């Protein structure tokens, strides 16, 4: 295995980001099902906080994706 130390660090960072994204996604799936259940039960008050929290979770996922993308580009840069 000819893996360089910089690549190893990059892989570790990407692994951590992926785990975080998976956790956020699980929370977001639960949030969607809970909001839908609440809506179908006639409680429409939950729709606004549900959408806001879902937007925050998506923003976090997108930020982590950008982080993964950046780390990947840096590690691939010649000289690393």
């Amino acid at each position: 295995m000819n893996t360089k130390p910089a690549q190893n660090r990059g892989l570790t960072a990407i692994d951590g980001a992926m785990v975080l994204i998976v956790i956020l996604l699980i929370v977001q799936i639960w949030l969607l099902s809970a909001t839908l259940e609440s809506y179908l039960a006639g409680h429409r008050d939950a729709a606004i906080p549900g959408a806001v929290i879902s937007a925050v979770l998506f923003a976090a996922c997108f930020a982590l994706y950008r982080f993964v993308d950046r780390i990947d580009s840096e590690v691939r840069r010649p000289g690393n």
Partner: protein
Amino acid sequence: MGWFRKPSSTPLWRDEFSVFTADERYVNRRQFTKFLTLTSFGMLVGNLWILAKSVVHRKVSYPRVPIAAMDAIPVGGVKMFSYPTANDPCILVRLAVDRFVAFSQKCTHLSCAVYFEREQNRLECPCHQGFFSIEDGSVLQGPPQRPLPRVVLEKQDALLVAVRMEGESE
């Protein structure tokens, strides 16, 4: 002799087949991360759809509809009617001389028609054995998760009048 290589040097196949496992893992993980992020966006769209449905939800105006003469239903008797539209079947039950209850007849599980089970004094959905309380329409047993919407009744002279629905989801 150029084809002799030292054992510690990079093997010849590495020069000709320069695919590195770590590089492949980077690409695959980045694609998977993109997929997860798109899934997250899908969840957000779902939540926004629910929000849009909540905002533009039309306010249902319930008409006052006479549904039965009180004397026409004996104690323990049942009458079917439609409220608030002709496509919304409901069930009216007389529990006592001066006590009437009415609920939507659509089971909150899969919309089968519920009926009054007089011996057990409860509403039953025969499709999947869901049972509802005759007192308030709450779920007693079975797959339904939500109570039956209740029809609010008023007495007007000798008539029972449906005035609105409570606990309706749509």
